[in-house]
C-alpha cells in the first residue's frame, strides 16, 4: 500500500534529521506507537496531493490512487470513528476557506475538530517550517471528495436522515461545475447519494434527479458517471418493480464501453433480470453468465453480488431446461445461501412435483426476499416436463392414470392434455391412444442422423472464434515500449565507428 510505504519513508527521515541536530536526543529515535489519527491525517494529505497531480497531469492512475485512498479513509472511519472523526473535521476546516458556503454544514455534521499535534513541531529544520502548512486553493475535486467522506461518515454512523440534505447539496454542487477531471469523483458522489436515499427507504425521490444527471453526464462525456447512473437508475426501477420503464430506459441509452468491470457486471445483472421477466431466457442467461464472469473472481470479494447473480442464473438455466453446475452449490461460503435453490434444482431434475411444492412452501420467504418468487413459480411447468420425459424414456407404454400418479399431479384428469402439449412442444416423443388411455413412447432415434450435432458444433465454433477476435483486439503494446528501443546518438556513433574499422580491416585483408 502506497500510504504505508510513505509513512515508513517519513519515519526514517526523522532520525536522520535529529541526528544532525542533537545526537543526544536518543529517546526520540524510538518509533512512536502507531497512531491511527496520524495515519488518517497522512492519508488525507496524500489524497490531496494525488488529486492535484491528477488535475495537473490528467493521468488516470492519480485518480485511481486518490479514490483508493478515499476507500482506505472510509475503512478507517468505520473501524474507529471516534478517532478519525475529529481528524477529518480538522482537515475539512483547514481545507475549506472560511467564506465557502458549505464549510459550516460539513463541520456541523462532524465531531469537533482535533488540535493537530505536529510530531515534528519541535524540529526547526523540518521542511514544513514552523507554523501552519501552506494554504492551497481548494480544488472542486478535493471538495467533492471531502464531501463524500463526510457523507460516508454520516451513513456509516447510522445518521441516515441527516445525510439526505447533504446528499442533495452535493448533487447540486456537481451540477454547477463543468470540468472533465470531475468525472471519476462525481461518479462516487452519485453512488453514495443514491445509497443514502436507499438506506433511508426513499429511493423514488432521487430518481428524477438521477435521470437529469444522466442526461448531463452524456452531454459532458462523463463515461464513468454515465455507467454508474444507468446502474443506479436500473436499481431504483427494479426496487419499485417498474420493469416496463426499466426496459424503455435500456432501449434508449447505451452503456459506455469504457466503464469499469464492476459497473459492467452490475449492468449485466440488471439487464439479465429484466430479460428474464420478459420471457427472453436465452438472452438473460447470456447476460447473467457474463455478469458472473466479470465479477471479482477471488472468493472473498463481492460475495453478495455473486450470490445474487448465481441465484438468478440458476433459475434462468432451469427455465431454459438445463441443469446448472454443482460447483456453486457446494462452495463452502455460498452453500447455506444457495440451499433453497439447490432443492429447486433437485426437484426440477427429478421431475418431482411433490418435492417442488415442498421447496416452494418451505423457502417462500427467501425467494420473495431475493425477488425471484414469480420466476420460481414458472418453474412448475419445467418440473412436470422433466418428470414426463423421464417416464417416457423409461416406459414403452404406460397408462395415463399411472403416469399422473407418478408425477403426483394435483388434478390427474389433466394428464392427457398435458401429455398432448408436451408432445406438441417436442419434449417427449410419443403418441396417445385415447380409447385405452395409454401413452405410447416411440423409441429414441439416433441423434447423429439429425442436425443437432451440427448446431452444437456451430455454437462452440462461433464462441471460440469470438474469443480469438476479442483476444487479438485486447493485445496492446505498453505505451512506452518503442521509446526504449531507440538508440541514442552515442551508441549510433560507436556502432558506425566499429563498422568502419571492420570495413577497413576487411579491405586490408583483401589487399593481401
Amino acid at each position: 500500500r502506497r500510504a504505508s510505504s510513505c509513512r515508513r519513508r517519513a519515519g526514517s527521515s526523522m532520525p536522520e534529521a535529529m541526528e544532525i541536530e542533537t545526537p543526544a536526543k536518543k529517546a526520540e529515535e524510538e518509533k512512536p506507537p502507531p497512531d491511527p489519527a496520524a495515519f488518517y491525517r497522512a492519508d488525507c494529505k496524500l489524497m490531496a496531493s494525488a488529486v492535484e497531480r491528477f488535475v495537473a497531469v490528467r493521468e488516470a492512475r492519480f485518480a485511481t490512487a486518490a479514490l483508493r485512498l478515499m476507500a482506505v479513509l472510509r475503512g478507517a472511519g468505520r473501524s474507529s470513528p471516534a478517532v478519525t472523526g475529529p481528524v477529518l473535521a480538522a482537515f475539512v476546516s483547514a481545507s475549506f476557506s472560511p467564506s465557502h458556503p458549505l464549510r459550516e454544514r460539513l463541520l456541523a455534521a462532524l465531531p469537533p475538530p482535533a488540535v493537530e499535534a505536529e510530531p515534528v513541531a519541535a524540529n526547526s529544520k523540518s521542511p514544513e517550517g514552523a507554523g501552519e502548512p501552506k494554504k492551497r486553493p481548494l480544488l472542486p475535486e478535493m471538495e467533492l471528495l471531502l464531501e463524500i467522506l463526510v457523507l460516508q461518515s454520516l451513513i456509516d454512523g447510522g445518521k441516515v436522515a441527516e445525510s439526505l440534505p447533504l446528499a442533495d447539496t452535493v448533487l447540486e454542487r456537481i451540477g454547477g461545475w463543468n470540468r472533465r477531471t470531475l468525472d471519476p469523483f462525481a461518479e462516487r458522489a452519485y453512488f453514495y447519494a443514491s445509497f443514502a436515499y436507499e438506506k433511508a427507504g426513499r429511493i423514488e425521490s432521487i430518481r428524477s434527479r438521477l435521470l437529469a444527471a444522466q442526461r448531463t453526464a452524456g452531454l459532458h462525456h462523463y463515461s464513468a458517471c454515465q455507467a454508474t447512473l444507468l446502474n443506479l437508475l436500473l436499481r431504483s426501477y427494479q426496487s419499485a418493480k417498474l420493469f416496463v420503464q426499466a426496459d424503455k430506459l435500456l432501449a434508449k441509452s447505451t452503456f459506455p464501453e469504457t466503464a469499469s468491470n464492476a459497473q459492467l457486471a452490475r449492468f449485466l445483472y440488471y439487464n439479465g433480470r429484466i430479460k428474464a421477466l420478459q420471457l427472453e431466457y436465452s438472452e438473460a442467461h447470456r447476460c447473467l453468465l457474463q455478469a458472473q464472469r466479470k465479477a471479482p473472481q477471488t472468493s472473498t470479494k463481492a460475495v453478495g453480488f455473486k450470490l445474487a447473480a448465481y441465484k438468478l442464473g440458476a433459475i434462468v438455466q432451469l427455465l431454459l431446461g438445463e441443469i446448472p453446475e454443482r460447483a456453486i452449490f457446494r462452495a463452502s461460503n455460498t452453500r447455506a445461501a444457495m440451499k433453497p435453490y439447490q432443492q429447486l434444482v433437485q426437484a426440477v431434475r427429478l421431475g418431482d412435483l411433490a418435492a417442488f411444492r415442498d421447496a416452494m412452501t418451505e423457502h417462500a420467504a427467501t425467494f420473495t426476499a431475493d425477488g425471484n418468487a414469480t420466476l420460481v413459480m414458472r418453474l412448475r411447468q419445467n418440473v412436470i416436463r422433466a418428470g414426463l420425459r423421464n417416464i417416457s424414456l423409461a416406459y414403452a407404454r404406460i397408462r395415463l392414470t399411472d403416469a399422473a400418479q407418478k408425477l403426483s399431479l394435483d388434478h390427474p384428469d389433466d394428464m392427457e392434455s398435458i401429455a398432448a402439449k408436451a408432445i406438441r412442444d417436442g419434449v417427449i416423443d410419443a403418441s396417445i391412444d385415447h380409447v385405452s388411455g395409454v401413452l405410447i413412447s416411440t423409441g429414441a432415434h439416433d441423434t447423429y442422423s439429425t442436425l443437432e450435432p451440427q448446431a452444437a458444433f456451430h455454437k462452440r465454433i462461433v464462441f471460440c472464434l469470438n474469443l480469438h477476435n476479442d483476444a487479438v483486439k485486447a493485445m496492446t503494446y505498453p505505451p512506452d515500449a518503442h521509446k526504449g528501443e531507440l538508440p541514442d546518438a552515442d551508441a549510433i556513433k560507436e556502432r558506425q565507428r566499429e563498422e568502419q574499422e571492420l570495413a577497413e580491416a576487411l579491405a586490408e585483408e583483401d589487399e593481401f
Partner: protein
Amino acid sequence: EMVADAAPLPTCAHCPERPSSSSDQAESIQAAAALLEQFKSSFAKEELDTSVKQLAQLKIAMLSFSSLPPAIPAVPSSSQQQELLLARDVLEHGALVSIKTVDIPAFERHIAQLKVYYTHCASLLPESPRRYPLLGLNLLRLLAQNRIAEFHTELELLPPGLQASNEFLKFPAQLEQHIMEGSYNRVLSAKQTGTYAAEGLYFMDMLVDTVRDEIAECSEKAYKAIAVSDLQSMLMLGSEAELNDFASGRSWRIDGANVTFGTDGDKPLALPASQLIHESLAYAKELERIV
C-alpha cells in the same frame, strides 16, 4: 391556485368556461357529480348509447378540474380530493362501458389512465372496490391477446401476497399457469364458472378460441386417430356440424366415427442449405484472419 389568478381563457363552443373562483369550482364539481349519477343509472340499465354520450360529456366536464394528474397536489384540499375521486369513478365506469361496447383500445386507454390513480394517489384517496376487478380484467385481456410478456410484467407489479389471496387476481394467474402446463380442459371449464362470468365474457371467448387452436394442434401431433365424439368434447364444440367446419378448416379427414389427422409419413430431412452455406463461409472468413 393558478386557476384563480389567470384571466378567463377564450372558450370554444364545446368546452365549459374555466371556473375562475372556488365557488364556481364547487359548482362544476357538483354538476359533474350529478352527471355521473345519471351515467351510472343508464349504465345499470344497459343503455349503451346514452352511456357513451354521457361519458363523453363527463370527460369534457373533467377538463375543468385543476388537480388531476400530472398536477396532483401533495396535500389536496377536500374539493380537490372530490375532483380526484370523481375522475377516478368516471374512468372506472368508462373502462366497464368500453368492455360492454367491445371497444378494446378504449379499455386499454382507460386502464392506463387509471393506473396513475392507483399508484400515485393510493395514499390520498380511499380504496376503490372496482380496483382489483379492473386490474384482473386487464390481465385477462393481455392473456387473451396472447401478450404473455406484458402479462408477466403486469403481474410483477402486484405484491405476491395479494396475488395469492385476491380472487380477482388469482383467476388470471391460475389461467395462465393452466395454459402453460397444457391443462386446457380447465381453461374451458373456467369459462362457465369463473369469477368474471359477467364482465369478462368477451375476453374469455377470445381466450377459448386461442385455447381451442392449441388443443387442435396438440391433438394432431399426439393422436393417430380419435373418435369424433371424444374430439368434440375435448374441443368443447357445441355440435357435430361445428366440428365438421373446424376439421375442414384444418384439413382433417373424417371417416365414419373417427377423425384422422393429415400426417404424411416422415418427410425426408430437408437440409437447410443456405444456412449451412452461410455458416461455412463465416468459418472460412474467420480462419483466414488468423495469421
